[in-house]
Structures are given as structure tokens and as C-alpha cells.
């Protein structure tokens, strides 16, 4: 009996000691190191590890310090990490966050605002593609995000099918795209692949078409979702399936990767929203050697030229920004690290290993000689930032929700203007209430 008690006591003691040890500081030991949080690359996991190792070695040669990598698997993981770090004031020194998440990160005020000195430390603002800086902060004086990599959106089309249909060049306006898609739809062949059930794709279409028509959806602190431009965007987007019938009816169940897979089977003219990361999937399908990227149309639906107040948004500004945590005790080291991975050699290295496009202007320039990439690099230069507001997450959620709730109507083959207007009113209410709370 006694021995059992002793055992229980020692094990509790051991547990307590272990817990105390785990809770201990993160900067024990003599050598310096920084913690970096990046997204786990599920498409190229081994290549990513090789890249991490190579960068860590370069950093050690340059500064003598180590890089400790942490990865997150989903946006949810990332947010939890940011929350706990922000609340506790300790955690990664450098974060890589998605462009559209940067406004939310900015609103937590937990990251270093970049002054002249910090920009100098990372090698100067001039070294980046100007458009890549579009979502670094609310204005030039209050930037927190340093552009790291780009993933601009483009269309991909089947060269053989377009040729067979007598189309000599891909569409540059949305109306032209619809018309070409109609021409391409025959028998079991469809003009267009669209991922209606994706959690993120729908709002990108709606925002792009509206911005081209002169409505960026968020205007200061006002949401402009109940607007003819937005209505027209939804009508066009739904119309492809419901009335034009140029999309496979099964597309109401597709996510982006399913739409790519459908296109890769070789019986679809266009896939309307993808990025250079799809290259591997495309080359694995029946379309190998028969596909090309093209810029997304930049003339709003219902028009033959862009109105004066419309913007030439070929893609949302997409990719990752680097943020340095305000609580970091290794800020200088963190900025040295940021400089290393945004300089030309490292930027070309990450493109070669992982297919992520450089934000570094010189590196981007050297990629333009590759004909396959020319379009993608151009899309990056013509990318336009989504509104910089802490409420943006709610706005894009409301825009997507309008599509999610419309899918049953869409599948029945008709969606009335009144139904669309009802959904827009709901989205407007949610978006406006989020903007009203913005501080």
C-alpha cells in the first residue's frame, strides 16, 4: 500500500516538473534563433522541407543564428496560433500570412509597422513589384506586410478545343468568355468549369467583376453590395450554369480542385479561376501539352470596354505577406531573415522548388522569359488588392454565403432577380454591420 502511495506521489511530482519545464522560456541556451510560422505545403511537402533546410543554412552562414520553423495546416490553425501568441505576447517572430488575411492581422495591432528604417533593413521598398505592396497596410505610412510570394489567379484553356471551335484567341471580356463558352459547349463537352461549391472562389469572381465595373464593394466604411454592378456580377456567375448552360450541372458540387480535375479530363474549354500551382495537376491529366494560361477578363459583364472608374483587376492580389511580431525580442534578426527570403536568389529558389511566384521585381523579371509564365507574371502585375479593412473577412463571407444558399435554385436551372436581390440584401446587412464595428 505504502509503495503504491509513494509511486503515485512521485508520478504527480514528475508530471508537475515536466509541465513546469514545458512552460519555460523559448529563448534558453546561448545561440540566437528566430521562430518562423509558415503554411504547410501539402502539394509539395518534401520540396518544402528541402527549401526550409536550405534557407536555414543560408541564414546561419549570414548571421550565425538558427531558424526554427513552425507550420500550420489550415487558416484555422494559423489564426489560433496568432490569437494565442497575441494574447500571451510570445510566439513566432515572423509570420507568413495570406494577403486577404493581412487586414485582419493589421487590426490586431500586434505586428511591427514598417518605417523607413525597417524597409531599409529588408532591402528597400523598390525591390518589390509595386502591385505586390497593395495589401501591406491601409496606406503607405502604415504598412505591416512585406510581400513574399504571389499566387495570382488566371484562367486556363484547352488549346485544342478552342482551335476546333474556331476561336483564335482567349476571351478578354466576360461577355466574350460567355459567348466562346457557348460555342465550345456541344454534346458531353462544356465551355467552362466553375467551382460553385468552393469556399473561396465565388467571392473572387464577384469582387473582380464589380471592381472592373467601378464598385470595389467596400467604400470607406460603407458596404456597396446592393448595387447594379454586384447584381450583374451574380447574374453572370449564376447564368453560366442556369441559363447559358455552358457549365457541367455537376459543378454545383465542385470545389476548386474538383473543377481543375474536370478540366484536366480534356472535355472543357476553360477553367475560369486557377493559379500556377495547378500546373502539376494539369500535366497529370489528359490535357497535358494542350493547355495554356490566360488573363482573366478585365472588362465587366454587359460591357465592351471598361468604364472610366473601373479598375483593370486581372486577379485579386493573392499570395503571402511576411509580418514581424511586435512582441518579438529578435526584431533585427527577424528583418534580416525577411531580407534573405525576399532577395532575388531566395525568391528564384522558392519558385523553382515550390512554384510560388516572386514578389521581388528582379526575380519576376527574369521569369518573364518563360513563355508559360509570362501570363502569370502579368496577372501578378495587374493584380488589385481587395479593400483593406478589418471587416473584409466578414464581407467575403457574406458574398460567398449568397452563392452557397443559392445553389439549390441554381441546380433547378433558374434563379430569379428577386431571389438574388434578397440574398444581396442579406449580405449587405451582414457586411455593413461588420464595417460598423471596424475600429
Amino acid at each position: 500500500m505504502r509503495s503504491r502511495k509513494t509511486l503515485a506521489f512521485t508520478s504527480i511530482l514528475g508530471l508537475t516538473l515536466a509541465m513546469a519545464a514545458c512552460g519555460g522560456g523559448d529563448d534558453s541556451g546561448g545561440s540566437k534563433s528566430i521562430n518562423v510560422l509558415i503554411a504547410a505545403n501539402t502539394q509539395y511537402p518534401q520540396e518544402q522541407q528541402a527549401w526550409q533546410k536550405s534557407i536555414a543554412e543560408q541564414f546561419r552562414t549570414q548571421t550565425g543564428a538558427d531558424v526554427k520553423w513552425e507550420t500550420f495546416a489550415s487558416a484555422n490553425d494559423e489564426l489560433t496560433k496568432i490569437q494565442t501568441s497575441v494574447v500571451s505576447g510570445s510566439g513566432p517572430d515572423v509570420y507568413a500570412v495570406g494577403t486577404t488575411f493581412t487586414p485582419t492581422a493589421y487590426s490586431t495591432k500586434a505586428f511591427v509597422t514598417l518605417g523607413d528604417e525597417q524597409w531599409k533593413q529588408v532591402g528597400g521598398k523598390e525591390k518589390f513589384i509595386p502591385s505586390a505592396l497593395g495589401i501591406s497596410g491601409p496606406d503607405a505610412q502604415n504598412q505591416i506586410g512585406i510581400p513574399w510570394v504571389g499566387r495570382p489567379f488566371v484562367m486556363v484553356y484547352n488549346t485544342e478545343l478552342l482551335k476546333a471551335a474556331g476561336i483564335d484567341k482567349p476571351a478578354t471580356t466576360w461577355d466574350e468568355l460567355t459567348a466562346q463558352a457557348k460555342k465550345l459547349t456541344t454534346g458531353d463537352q462544356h465551355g467552362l468549369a466553375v467551382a460553385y461549391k468552393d469556399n473561396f472562389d465565388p467571392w473572387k469572381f464577384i469582387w473582380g467583376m464589380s471592381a472592373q465595373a467601378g464598385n470595389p464593394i467596400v467604400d470607406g466604411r460603407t458596404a456597396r453590395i446592393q448595387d447594379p454592378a454586384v447584381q450583374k456580377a451574380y447574374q453572370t456567375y449564376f447564368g453560366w450554369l442556369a441559363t447559358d448552360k455552358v457549365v457541367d450541372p455537376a459543378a454545383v458540387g465542385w470545389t476548386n480542385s474538383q473543377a481543375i480535375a474536370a478540366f484536366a479530363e480534356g472535355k472543357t474549354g476553360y477553367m475560369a479561376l486557377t493559379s500556377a500551382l495547378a500546373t502539376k495537376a494539369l500535366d497529370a491529366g489528359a490535357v497535358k501539352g494542350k493547355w495554356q494560361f490566360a488573363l482573366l477578363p478585365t472588362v465587366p459583364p454587359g460591357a465592351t470596354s471598361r468604364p472610366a472608374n473601373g479598375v483593370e483587376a486581372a486577379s485579386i492580389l493573392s499570395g503571402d505577406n511576411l509580418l514581424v511580431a511586435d512582441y518579438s525580442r529578435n526584431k533585427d534578426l527577424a528583418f534580416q531573415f525577411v531580407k534573405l527570403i525576399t532577395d532575388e536568389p531566395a525568391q528564384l529558389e522558392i519558385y523553382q522548388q515550390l512554384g510560388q511566384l516572386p514578389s521581388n521585381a528582379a526575380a519576376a523579371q527574369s521569369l518573364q522569359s518563360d513563355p508559360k509564365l509570362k501570363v502569370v507574371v502579368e496577372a501578378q502585375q495587374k493584380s488589385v488588392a481587395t479593400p483593406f479593412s478589418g471587416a473584409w473577412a466578414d464581407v467575403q463571407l457574406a458574398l460567398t454565403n449568397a452563392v452557397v444558399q443559392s445553389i439549390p435554385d441554381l441546380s433547378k436551372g433558374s434563379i430569379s432577380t428577386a431571389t438574388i436581390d434578397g440574398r444581396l440584401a442579406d449580405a449587405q446587412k451582414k457586411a455593413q454591420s461588420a464595417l460598423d464595428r471596424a475600429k
Partner: protein
Amino acid sequence: MRQRPLWLLAPGGALMILVILLPLGLAGWISTIDLDQYTLRRWVQAPFIGLGNYTESLGSGLLHSIWISVSFAVLSTLATIPIGIAAALVTQNAYRGRALVRAVFLIPYVLPSFVVATVWRTMLQPDGVVNNWLGADGSLWLSGPRSYWALILVEIWAAWPFIYLMALAALQSVDHEVHEASAVDGATWWPKLTRVVLPYLRGPVLLACLLATLNHINNFTLPFVLFGAPAPDDVNVMPMLVYVTSFQSLRFGLSAAMAVVSLIIIAIPLFAYLRAVRLDVHEEGGRR
């Protein structure tokens, strides 16, 4: 009666305070402050807004979500009970291959929820195998009103082995003498089943119902992977609503209020259920 050494409960009590009561209290407090991405960094100083989050949560679809969650959970439980008990009875007596059948029955329960949801998601596509079997090409399972039934269907498929396991455990505890006695009395299989065997199952199965219903209500992975976020209104179950509110809208105060409201709303019938079925298995055993 001798003084019992109640102090021995102290470590367990301390752990309960640390693991259950403290977080619960914290959730209660967060539900009264305006905690979002703007105030997160100085969360201790986040403005106190009293019941503001509660009134907002009632106006933002929470009751609809609770209704969906509870009805979905109860229907799933009701459907799994007969399946689970029948499966337990089938594997009660020894026969060739029984071990294999028992193992096969556990497959849905052993598979991670994520895998189950991914597989069903593929099968329930508009041009998927389910529609092919039914000859209902293009009908929607993952959006619109039918998504509710799709959720229940998949939940039943994944969760019935839990009832099966509990029922099987209870069957094993039926004394051998009872079987002999009913054989001596000349009871045929049906009276034996309904009057002798099933009463033994009452306690464990009622307990299993409770646990299963709570598991259904708390299941987040299944609807999330099946339908994605934002979810269609028909399957916007409570965990999905709380998830979207905290992790997409970043309204931590509001989502805490939602969690507290749902806790209260679910705790009331739960309490009534516990009182009604008196799950004191030992007491029952003593009486027998």
C-alpha cells in the same frame, strides 16, 4: 459512521476546478465583453457590454441552429438504437465467423470522422455514386433541404456502432443462469428477448442514448467536411455557427455567448432526461 477521508478528493477536485470550472467561468466572462480582432491584443481591457452579445446571438440565427442541432441529434440517436441493438443480438451467440462480423461492425466507428465525411462527400456529389444507384441524376445532397437528411444519414452510418458496443457489453453481463432459467421455463425466443434480455439492456442503452446524442450535437468535423463553411442554412448546426462566428468573423465574445446559450438550452432537457430515466445502474442491480 466513521468520518470519511474526504480530503482525498482534493486532487480530483482541484483538477476539476482547473479543467472544467475555470474555462467555463472564463467563457462566461468573455461572453459579456466585446472581444474581437480589434480588442484581442489587450483582451483584459476589452469593453464590457453586459448582455449585448446574448441579445445579438438570439437575433443571428442561433435558435435556428440549436433547433437543427438538437433535432438532428435526436433523430440520429433514435435511428441508431434499433440498428445497434439488432447488431448486438446478432453477434451475441457464438458461431463461425462471429469475430469477423464483430470486427466489420466496428469499421465505421474506427474510421476518423474526417475520412468518413470525405468519402461520403464524394459519394453524394451531384454526379456521384449515390445518385447513380438511385437513378436520380443531378439531385442535390450537399446543398438545400436534402442536406439535412444527408447529414443524418452519414451520422447514423458513422455512429451506430457506439450503441452496438454498449448493447453488446450489456448482453455479456446477462447471467448465464437467466438464460438457463428461461430455457427451463420453456420461454420461446420472442418472450425471452422482450421480457428477459431487453430489460437488462435498459440502463446501458439509455446511457448510450445520452452520450450519443451529446456526441451528435458536438460533432463539428462531419458537417464541416461534408458541406464546408459557410454551410447551407439547412445544416448550419451549432458547432458550425460558433466556428464561423469565432474563426471567420472573429467575434470571440459573441461566439462565447452563443456557446453559453446553447449550453443552457441543452442542459435543461438533459437534466430532465437524467431525472426521468434514473441512470443509477448499481442501484438497479441491487434491487434485482
